[in-house]
Structure formats: structure tokens, C-alpha cells
């Protein structure tokens, strides 16, 4: 059972769910999104527990189902509701869902989504996996105003049966925040290398194209990338920069202003948010991929670019170094180091052979380490291991 994600979920989660369902896993998705959106998938059941007034209706249905299967959990949930009001109901609804559908494993795909469910993880009788994907362990704990959430982290880590980390770097950060090293299961993100395929042959010679994709949010630090690009142009770079990604009003005006302020209107093109199909086309039309995050788990966007055979210039944020080998698949530059980023872009721009070599290495790297198939195997190993452990423990108990 996957607890508290959006539905339809982010692309990378959808891929994971589809792959596991394809292996015969039965998956229950618990989501607070109301409405009917999202695809129907075989072996996937979506249970909606919306917030507000509608929560009560949905929760009562769950209570009925739970009461039939596990009376004690049903009563415990009722007590939580009575004792805790709205937040108690939130917890109770999840408890009843667990009692009703009896999953073998609970998975919290977002670290802090586990905070309201701590009691359930503790005494629900189902082993829980909690994911650390980035911001929730890299950024939130350093915000003085989110210390309450940060203080919950050690408890989440100690209650979870396993803590999934998207990179070794994120695992290190989790350890610094109180996770026992042996709890960590590093499963890196993955792409489908049969979908993300390099463009065949050389198209007509054209101006060099640099591409950036990803939501316009501050931690992606587009302003640094633009500053670096402007610096590289000053040193003789002849290339166009295309940016695909949508965002809120502030980040959008920040991007547009920076483009204008740096005098780049004629060579930087912002395309807004684009469909996955269009992103794939853009990747196949580009020559170099640029990524400027100040904080990152491992970027799916970069993996997609590598799968398409693009040399990449990335910042040394989070686990990026585990995907990109500096000097082999592209260049890894220090975060916020505009000069180093400019230098890397220039090197790639001046040397077509280097681009070809690095692009090929990047594709190879994905094929070896970041395929969806490999990731699915790792997930199965993790989940099935947990189920066996639980069974063994119960065997001992009886």
C-alpha cells in the first residue's frame, strides 16, 4: 500500500507502480486527491481519502470494511478520531484502510508524509518503508521554521522497517539526521532506455543547442545557469539555450527578468511546461544538457538526457555525482560556481568529438545502472525481503 501520494502521481512514481503491477503485485494507493482523475491500471486500487467534510464519508466506509476484518484496529482508529479531531480522523482513516486491505508492506513515498501516521507505523502490524527523495531531508531540516517536522525525522527512521534513499548522498544526510546506517536501502531513480533513445544520425549542421528541463522552483537555480551561460557567451560560446519547465509566478518572472537583464533575449528560449513526449523530442534535438540545482536527490531529467546520449553539465548537488562521472559522461561542477559551469559549457561546445564520446558514455552508464528493469528488480528484492522477514518473525512468535 502506497500512502499519501497525488493521483495521478508524478511520472517516476507512475512508472514504478506500473512496473510492479505488471509483475503481479497488488497495489493500493491511498490518496487525498478527490475526483476521478488518473488511469485505471490492472492490479492497482485507488482509495481516496479527501480532506475536509468529505473525509468523514470516505472514512466511515473504510471503518465498516475495517470492522469486518480487524475489530481491534477499527476501535483503535475510532479512539484516535474522537481524541484527535481532524488530524485524528486523518490517522484513523489510514489505519482503517490498512485493516481493510491488509497490505504486506506500507510505503511512504514522501518522507514527511509519514509524520501524521507515526502511530500507525508503530502498532499497525505492517512493516513500513519510508522514502527519502531530497528536499524533505536536505532542505526542510535546515529551515528554522520547520523544526517540528525535522524533530519527527529520527522517530520516522527508527519506526520504519527500511528507509529508501534515492542516492548514497541522501542516505548520508539521513544518517546525519539520526537514521541507522543499516536501515538504508539505496535504490536510485531509473529511466526506460527503450523510450529515451538517442536521435539517429547527424541532422543538418545547425547552431549548438543546450537544453534544460525541470520545474521552475528555486532549488533548480535557473538564475545561476543563466548567469553561467551569459558568462560563457562572453567568452565566445555560440549556442542556443532552451528551457522547458513551468512554475509559479515568482520563479517565472525571475527567469524572464534574468533573461532580459543579462541581455539573452535573442538566444534563450523559454518554452514553459511541456508534455513528456515533447520533452523527449527536445532532448533528441539538443546537443548538451545543463542542470544547475543547488539541492537534488538524483535528477530524473538528467538521467533521461543521458539515456538520449547527451553529454551533461550538472552541479554537484545531492547524488548527482553517483549518476554522472565527472570527465566521462559530462562535467560535474560545484554548486553555485558560475565560472566552472561556463567553462564546462565552453569545453563541450568547442569539441564535437568530446560531446560524442561523453554522450555515448552517458547512454552506456544508464544502460548499466539506471534502467527501469534493474530498479524494478531492486524494489522486488526490498519488498519481498521485508515480507519474508515478517513471516519469519511471526513464525517464531507462534
Amino acid at each position, binding site marked *: 500500500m502506497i500512502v499519501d501520494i497525488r493521483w495521478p502521481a508524478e511520472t517516476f512514481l507512475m512508472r514504478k507502480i506500473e512496473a510492479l503491477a505488471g509483475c503481479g503485485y497488488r497495489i493500493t494507493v491511498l490518496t487525498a486527491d478527490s475526483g476521478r482523475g488518473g488511469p485505471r491500471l490492472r492490479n492497482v486500487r485507488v482509495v481516496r481519502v479527501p480532506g475536509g467534510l468529505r473525509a468523514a464519508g470516505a472514512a466511515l466506509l473504510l471503518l465498516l470494511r475495517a470492522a469486518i476484518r480487524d475489530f481491534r484496529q477499527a476501535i483503535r482508529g475510532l479512539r484516535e478520531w474522537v481524541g484527535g479531531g481532524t488530524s485524528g480522523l486523518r490517522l484513523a482513516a489510514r489505519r482503517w484502510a490498512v485493516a481493510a486491505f491488509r497490505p504486506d508492506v506500507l510505503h511512504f513515498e514522501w518522507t514527511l508524509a509519514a509524520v501524521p501516521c507515526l502511530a500507525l507505523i508503530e502498532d499497525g502490524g505492517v512493516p513500513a518503508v519510508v522514502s527519502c527523495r531530497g528536499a524533505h531531508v536536505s*532542505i526542510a531540516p535546515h*529551515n528554522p521554521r520547520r523544526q517540528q517536522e525535522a524533530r519527527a525525522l529520527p522517530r520516522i527512521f527508527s519506526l520504519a522497517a527500511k528507509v529508501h534513499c534515492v542516492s548514497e548522498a541522501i542516505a548520508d544526510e539521513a544518517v546525519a539526521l539520526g537514521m541507522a546506517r543499516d536501515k538504508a536501502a539505496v535504490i536510485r531513480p531509473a529511466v526506460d532506455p527503450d523510450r529515451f533513445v538517442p536521435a539517429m544520425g547527424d541532422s543538418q549542421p545547425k547552431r549548438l543547442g543546450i537544453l534544460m528541463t525541470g520545474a521552475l522552483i528555486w532549488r533548480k537555480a535557473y*538564475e545561476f545557469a543563466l548567469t553561467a551561460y551569459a558568462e560563457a557567451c562572453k567568452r565566445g560560446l555560440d549556442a542556443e539555450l532552451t528551457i522547458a519547465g513551468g512554475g509559479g509566478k515568482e520563479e517565472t518572472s525571475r527567469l*524572464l527578468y*534574468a533573461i532580459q537583464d543579462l541581455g539573452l533575449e535573442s538566444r534563450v528560449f523559454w518554452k514553459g511546461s511541456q508534455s513528456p513526449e515533447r520533452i523527449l523530442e527536445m532532448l533528441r534535438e539538443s546537443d548538451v544538457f545543463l542542470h544547475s540545482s543547488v539541492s537534488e536527490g538524483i535528477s530524473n531529467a538528467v538521467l533521461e538526457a543521458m539515456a538520449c546520449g547527451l553529454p551533461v553539465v550538472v552541479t554537484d548537488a545531492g547524488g548527482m555525482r553517483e549518476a554522472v562521472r565527472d570527465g566521462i559522461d559530462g562535467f560535474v561542477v560545484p554548486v553555485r560556481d558560475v565560472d566552472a559551469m561556463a567553462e564546462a559549457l565552453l569545453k563541450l561546445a568547442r569539441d564535437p568529438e568530446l560531446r560524442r564520446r561523453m554522450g555515448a558514455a552517458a547512454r552506456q552508464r544508464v544502460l548499466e545502472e539506471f534502467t527501469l528493469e534493474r530498479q524494478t528488480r531492486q524494489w522486488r528484492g526490498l519488498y519481498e525481503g521485508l515480507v519474508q522477514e515478517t513471516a519469519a518473525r511471526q513464525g517464531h512468535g507462534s
Partner: protein
Amino acid sequence: MRIVMVAPAFPQTSETFLFQKAAGLMERGHSVTVVCQRSDAAQWERYRGHPAQEALRGAVRVAAPARPRWLAAMHAPKAALRAMERPQVAARYFRAGLRGWRDLYLDAEILAAKPDIVHFEFGATAAGRMHIGERLGCKVVVSFRGFDLNFAGLDDPHFYDEVWAKADGIHCLGQDLWRRAQRRGCPADKLHALIPPAIDAEFFQRKKERIPETAGTRERPLRLLSVGRLEWKKGYEFALEAVKRVKDAGMALEYRIVGDGSYYEAVAFARHQLGLEQEVELCGAMDREGVREQLEWADIFVHAAVSEGFCNAVLEAQAMETPVVCSDADGLPENVVDGVTGYVTPRRRPREMAERILALAADAELRLAMGRAGRERVAREFRLEDQIRRFEEFYGRVAGR
């Protein structure tokens, strides 16, 4: 003269200049009405005790809301009553058809004030309302203060066309904004005035005299200060990078950031990532008195904005004899005299900024001299009375056309 000032919200602590301007014009005998969308009781509290507070409270009219529709429907009768105070003018609106009805609803408060001059204090709010001059038979002045030229309507090249065509006068805070206005289509021969903001130099005055102190040791760390909302425009990430370089040069320092905003988490994260948690304090927002005390404390004022109309905080720092190291965004080079009252460095370049901070940190006499020069300049060129007089004179020129 009857003057109507149009602003989104009044009063706002972040826009004290509007309050001071309205009060100043009133004091000089003009009839001033402020038409706004919001007027917050809590904001008025902060002006308690200000001599003009009562008079200004009476001069504020909250315009009928454009949205949501149901609320607009409820305000329509009141707006209609206001409009009927000048039936002939209202008739001009009716002739413009359905659009005219809508305009009349929005303009009712302005119309009822019978203005000689309508002054849109922020350029972005003037777009789409330039019919006011003809219909009310008055002159229209539009101010540009920074963001209205830098961001508003960037995706539409004709966003300000009507303003350039129909406004009777354009006011910009400085030379740089006037150039930006021209780049966005304003004719160079448009009647305009460059009137910089002014500050209350009486209030922002040191209580303790500055003494030349060696700073940067463990016993007496260098004291750096920034004041301004935590927004991307203010470039705090660049300021923190510069401060990191200063620290790496072996300087013991404390850096206080006064302000709050939607980039709080980004600033807090940069502080962590750059290893400055011990040195940097995020103080949150402060009132005028709090800011004054911080300026009394600081050795150097740091301002790394990437976009900035003119910046009152930098003026206040200079009034408090605090040397400034700032970026060259927009109006800042007109605000700080490079090499005299502080240093101006290229925006988005933390290295250059760090070098200037280090130069100032090493030289207590220089800090003192630059601080004094700043005070002198602000007290001479950014006086409230002068600002009011210049607006008065500009209005006279506009009305006399």
C-alpha cells in the same frame, strides 16, 4: 490642487513613502484622496502617533472590488451612488457601452473626489485605466518604481502602449528607470520627472557616535547587515556567497538579515549549504525602530539585489552613517556614490562584492569617512520636504499643459 493617489494598498509599512508623500502634500494645503483596494487596520496601528494619521485616515477611500463577481454585485449600488455625484461625467462612461459601465464601477471613488490630478503610484495598476483623463477631464500621472518596468507585462510588448500614449506625465525614481521606460516604448520627449524617494533623516540618525573600531577578530567580529524582504529580487543568495568568501578570507563576522518573505527557505538553505549557520542570523521582519537599532549596530550594510527600483533601506543605512556595499541593480548606482558613500559592484558577482567588503572591513577610518559622506548626501539630497516640493512643482507643470 485636488490630487488622487491610486495604490493597491494603503498604508503599507513597506511603502512608507506613500504615507509620507500624502501627509506632506496635505500639509502644504492640497486636497489629497488616496484610493486603494485594501486598507488594513493593523497597518494603521503602526502609524499611531504620526501627526497626520487622523487626517489621512479620513482621506482614504477603498474602491469597489473587481473580483469576485458576487462581491462586486453587492458593491454596485454604492458605486452607483458615488458616480451620481457627477452625472455629466457618469454619462461619458455610459456612452462607452458595457465596458464603460465596468470602468465606472471601478472608477467611482476617483470620480467622486473631483481630481485635478490622478496619480497612479505603480505603473502596473495604470494599464487599462488610461481613459480616466478624458472622461474625468483631469491630468494623469503614472509612477514607475522598479518591478512595474522589470516584470509587469514582460510577455506583452504592448502592455504599456496606452500609458505612453495617454499619460500626461511620467514619474520615475531615477535615471535608470527612465531609460528602462524608454526601452519599453515610452517616447523620449514625454513630460517626465525624476524624483528619488526621500527618507525621514531626523528619525534615522545615530544616537551613539561612530568610533573607528578594528573589526574582524573573534572578540569583535565584523558586523554585516541586510534589510529587505526575503524575495529573489533582493539577491540574498549572492550576498551569502559573498559573505562566505569574506569568512574564508579569515574574517570573523556576524551577518544579520532583517526581513521576511516567500524565499525564507531558500535563504535558510543557502545559509546551511554555505556553512554559515554560526555567522548568519535570520531576524525576521522588524519595525522602523528595530531597523534603526540594527543600523546603529552594523559596520557595513550589504545589498545584493538583482532588481531594485531605488531602495529606501539603502538610503536609511546611509542616513545612519553606515557604509554600503551594494550591487549595481537599476537605481542603486544613483543611490550610493561608488567610492564615496560605499561601493557599487556588478550584480550576481559575489567575488567582487566580497573584495569590497574586505576592503572596508580592513579600514575602520574608511568606514567612518564613507559613513559620514553617506549621511551628508542623504541629508542634502533626499530630504522629505524637497521631495514634496518637487512633486508639487511637477503636478503644476502637468496641470499647466
